């Protein structure tokens, strides 16, 4: 099978294949280069090595079941994907989310965004040779993942957000843990800017490489940090504010040239702004019921409920900590039929049992009205949009993801033209290509 590059290449030039299995830490992609000495004359990018059939799988699963699949799309910032999917369904069904749940979603999104930028820059700098920076960034990311794990139960693929709210309330020491993680992150960011910002080697390697002028960026459909590095001010959180972003004060950093250095600087500054957002949310968040202690075992409560309503609180398993019945009004919506009923109701009365059964049974459960909807959030790499077509049943008829890095990588062939082979790696790293989102 001859590729387009092999047909178009001149006879004297050298064709090199940076194959699907390569040292760059981002994902599987094949870049074929036509070289004239060390300069890249022409190139071709081949994707699809991680196409896992996400859109086809979604047509065979219920709306609730396909939440874990959305985690694995942009796997470095999984909570933002969850939020995007759930908010699309909430727009279609016109569900209102309680305020505390909105603040929790914003905090989790921003922590995910910090992890995304940390991973992207860690990989980009490691490939250029700055190994220390990689280790520092991963140290900061571990601290944030510890905090996320204490609340949601998993480090990476969390499936924490539910339709109408979140799964559990934040754990009791969340404030202190997050402040400690933020301190470590701020120290790391300060160290790294001291190491790299004015470093002659870094500036020589990344300044004026792969310059993307603003018209080209808009024509290619760039969004996110890559677009803002070219100087165009567009952030979904400011343009179409969702959740509580309109009540929080943060800045959107812009670049000047649109080269690799600007993409690096925009990401560094965005991380500081995300830390500010998390601090403001912690102050403004409404309080909820404090920790609930159970007194009787579930088996006893079930026996008691056969004759009368149990008057003591039920001791739930440690997995369900944070999703007791008293916490439900602050973390989940009051609309019917879209949430799992609280376990106390399921154990003790008939309506709770029937609601639980109907939620999970095939054919019933979450059934949005017929129609179509498009909603987008600000993902780690840009505007992450979901387009859902619903036909009234409990399985989506069509679900399409607008992945931000798809459009950015489609410009990669233009970006590396005319540069040296050693510039391909930082350019590719600065686009923050995530295989799960590119290939779905």
């Amino acid at each position, binding site marked *: 099978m001859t590729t387009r590059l092999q047909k178009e290449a001149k006879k004297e030039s050298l064709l090199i294949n940076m*194959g*699907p*299995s*390569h*040292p760059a*830490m981002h*994902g*599987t992609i094949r870049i074929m280069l036509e070289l004239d000495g060390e300069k890249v004359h022409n190139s071709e990018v081949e994707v*699809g*090595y*991680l*196409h*896992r*059939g996400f859109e*086809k*799988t979604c047509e065979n699963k219920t709306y609730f079941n396909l939440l*874990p*699949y959305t985690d*694995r799309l942009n*796997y*470095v910032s999984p909570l933002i994907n969850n939020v995007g999917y759930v908010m699309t369904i909430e727009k279609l069904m016109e569900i209102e989310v309680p305020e505390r749940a909105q603040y929790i979603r914003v905090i989790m999104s921003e922590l995910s965004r910090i992890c995304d930028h940390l*991973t992207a820059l*860690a990989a980009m700098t490691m490939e250029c040779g700055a190994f220390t920076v*990689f*280790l520092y960034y*991963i*140290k900061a*990311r*571990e601290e944030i*993942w510890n905090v996320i794990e204490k609340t949601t139960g998993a*480090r*990476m*693929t969390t499936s924490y957000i539910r339709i109408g709210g979140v799964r559990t309330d934040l754990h009791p020491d969340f404030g202190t843990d997050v402040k400690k993680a933020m301190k470590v992150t701020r120290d790391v960011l300060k160290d790294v800017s001291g190491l790299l910002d004015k470093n002659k080697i870094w500036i020589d390697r990344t300044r004026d490489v792969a310059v993307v002028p603003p018209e080209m960026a808009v024509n290619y459909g760039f969004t996110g940090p890559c677009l803002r590095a070219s100087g165009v001010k567009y952030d979904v959180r400011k343009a179409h504010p969702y959740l509580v972003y309109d009540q929080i004060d943060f800045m959107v950093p812009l670049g000047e040239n649109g080269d690799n250095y600007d993409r690096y600087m925009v990401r560094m500054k965005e991380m500081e702004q995300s830390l500010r957002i998390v601090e403001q949310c912690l102050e403004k968040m409404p309080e909820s019921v404090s920790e609930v202690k159970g007194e009787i075992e579930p088996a006893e409560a079930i026996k008691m409920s056969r004759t009368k309503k149990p008057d003591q609180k039920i001791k739930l398993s440690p997995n369900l900590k944070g999703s007791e019945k008293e916490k439900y009004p602050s973390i989940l919506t009051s609309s019917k039929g879209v949430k799992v009923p609280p376990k106390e109701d399921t154990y003790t009365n008939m309506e709770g049992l029937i609601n639980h059964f109907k939620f999970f049974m095939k054919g019933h459960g979450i059934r949005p009205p017929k129609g179509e909807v498009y909603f987008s959030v600000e993902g780690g790499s840009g505007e992450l949009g979901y387009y859902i077509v619903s036909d009234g049943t409990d399985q989506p008829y069509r679900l399409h993801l607008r992945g931000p890095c798809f459009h950015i990588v489609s410009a990669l062939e233009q970006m590396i033209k005319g540069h040296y082979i050693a510039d391909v790696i930082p350019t590719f790293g600065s686009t923050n290509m995530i*295989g*799960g989102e590119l290939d779905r």
Partner: protein
Amino acid sequence: MGKIRPIKKYSYYQKTAHGGFIATKLNYAIGWGRKFSIFHYPFITACCGMEYMSAACAHWDFDRFGVGMTTFSPRQSDLLFVVGTITHKEAPVLKTVYDQMVEPNWVIACGACAVSGGIYDNYAVVQGIDKIIPVDVYIPGCPPRPETILNALLKLQDKIQKQKQDLRWKIIKE
């Protein structure tokens, strides 16, 4: 090419590896050397790569187990670390990389997608890499915690220690 005979010096050990005292001690010594100096080739595709990165960095360092040297050439590596989902488009690439590795080599399948296809059961995903190459250690988890990866490395080291070592000087191609 015909069969290449092994060098006579070692053929005595090859025949009596089961019984002799010196042969078992030599086996043990070579196994000890091999298990603590593994060069691995990380074939990373998807989300499990993030946990591989965590296992490789300062918190759960796997350099302490001797697995620290990451080579990016399969011809110079002992261990193929398959991390992430393998699709049908990627399968010939994996086979090519495995074929380039020299005996003795080992394969670890890290993550649910590499073990059995994971949560993806559709037209595009290979249901487990043992349909393409032979696997030594399977690591479950989606994604597996770094401690699980370290546990798998320890299990692999036990396996390397106990298996009958390949003492041949040259490869006999069947």
